[in-house]
């Protein structure tokens, strides 16, 4: 049983960003976990309720619903009503969100190997890190699901104690997962020679920050993109009309050293 739960959670996590992208949704996941636990209709009913709650959560954060769905399915199969099961499962939204940051941090480890693969022009140099990322993401969720299914209330109570006592670790990992994206942006800034046009960077940041202050969600990057292409179209028009030449002297490596 536990192995089947591991496999189901593994496949759902691997699927989240790849094939159907919907296996982790409560409606599908609760039904699958319900079937594994021996009562698919109970899982289906809990999944229907939890799915409607997940739509609201989607407006705020991008996460997956494997652990909440498993919790809802376990409760529903054990006789709790669909609504109560879904309400209880919502407690795991935060944990799922944190796990996503942690798997992202773990997968960063594969970047140097991928860069080496690029340097050697080896396709396997990219495919292996890609598959390892997929396996690790699946394994993390599979293991968590198996532990959750094995220990039930005990593990939930343990989690409450643990997150209360060591909340800073989870908070730190969450912050680290977010901060590390700054490295990728800094690499691009350097490779685009952004110091020649710092105004464009600050304008983009300012506009996005203004939208975020106004609590605007997903369209921020889309709107910024439209403005960015608008500005660059004007710049292209002016430069192509005037025949202006750009000064593209690149000084990328300080002292001739390389980055990787």
């Amino acid at each position, binding site marked *: 049983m536990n192995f089947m739960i591991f496999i189901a959670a593994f496949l759902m996590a691997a699927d989240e*960003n*790849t*094939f159907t*992208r*919907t296996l982790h949704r409560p*409606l599908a996941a609760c*039904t699958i976990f319900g079937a594994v636990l021996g009562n698919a209709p109970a899982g*289906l*009913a809990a999944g229907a*309720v939890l*799915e*409607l709650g997940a*739509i609201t959560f*989607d407006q*705020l954060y991008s996460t997956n619903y494997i652990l909440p769905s498993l*919790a809802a399915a376990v409760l529903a199969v054990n006789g*709790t009503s669909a609504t*109560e099961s879904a309400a209880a499962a919502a*407690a795991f939204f*935060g*944990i799922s969100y*944190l796990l996503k940051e942690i798997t992202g941090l773990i997968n*960063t480890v*594969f970047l140097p190997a991928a860069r080496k693969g*690029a340097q*050697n*022009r080896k396709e396997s140099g990219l495919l292996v*890190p890609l598959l390892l990322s*997929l396996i690790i993401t699946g394994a993390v969720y599979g293991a968590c699901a198996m532990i959750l299914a094995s220990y039930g209330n005990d593990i939930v109570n343990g989690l409450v104690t643990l997150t209360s006592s060591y909340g*800073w670790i989870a*908070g730190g*990992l969450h912050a*680290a997962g*977010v901060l*590390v*994206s*700054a490295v*990728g942006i*800094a*690499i691009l*800034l*350097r*490779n*685009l020679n*952004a110091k020649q046009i710092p105004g*464009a*960077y600050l304008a*983009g*940041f*300012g506009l996005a920050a203004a939208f*975020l202050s106004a609590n605007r969600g997903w369209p921020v*990057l*889309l709107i910024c*993109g439209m403005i*960015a292409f608008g500005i660059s179209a004007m710049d292209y028009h002016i430069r192509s009309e005037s*025949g202006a*030449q*750009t000064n*593209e002297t690149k000084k990328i490596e300080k002292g001739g050293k*390389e980055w990787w």
Partner: protein
Amino acid sequence: MVVVGTGVYQDTNEAYPLDKKTLSAVALRSILAGASHNAETSESIGWAWALMPALKKIHTNEEDLSLCIGHHLETVKASSMLTTLTMGTVLALEQQKADPETIRSVRTAMSASIDSLGTGLFRYLLIPFCAMACAALASEGNTLGAVLMVIIPAVISIVCRMILINTGYAKGVRAAESFMKHADALKHASRIAGVFMLGALSAVMTRAIGSAAEFGNADSSVGIMTLVSYVLPGLFGLLAVWFSYTLMAKKNRSPLFMVIVLIAIGLLGALIGIWTPYPSVLNVPWLAS
């Protein structure tokens, strides 16, 4: 030794146009692109791997191919179902042998905005629509509700990918042929778009710092950065980018070193209370049972 991802192409002759089979292979591979999500460069490994069949045909010069794969390993958003539109456009520029700086600028600006649109369409339109229709079926005990919840978005996603790769490539080639007449102007203009979007990404990708408070109980403590983020969202992202840029560009620190430093800052900041501690699990019926 080739510096991965930087420099210019040695062979600047336009490559043969890509055939539909190659473009379809790229579109199918793009399904796996999201699997490589990592904290530093998002989906760059999957993105580069998806483009490989086309890049191998375009770049016959080995050093150019290294350079090309290298710059495609930079930060890119490639998890949405519309991502093949960007892939098609980028491949059109590669086939025209545009300057790598132009390509990375277009890729950065386009992937961020297209991913935003794709995520919006998927998460806020397609999924809620399917969920409401399928949940209604499922609540009557019909398993078809769960099956359709999986199949409908998957089919739409695959169809979008297959169509958009061809659209992006065809339109991209036409646009590139026209714009490449003024290559320098194109390079400068696309760089503005790329750097502008990097500014926007700095704010958006790092806005989640402090957001954990929203999961918390009423008595959760709130970190300093959460309060700062109310004043200027993304401010800490800006500082983190500036810090990383300074150390890497001026002190020649490696990306791996920076990742370790930022993880240490993340943990240290949480320990001394700069960010909000991660909240405990809510008190719910599960615990009471």
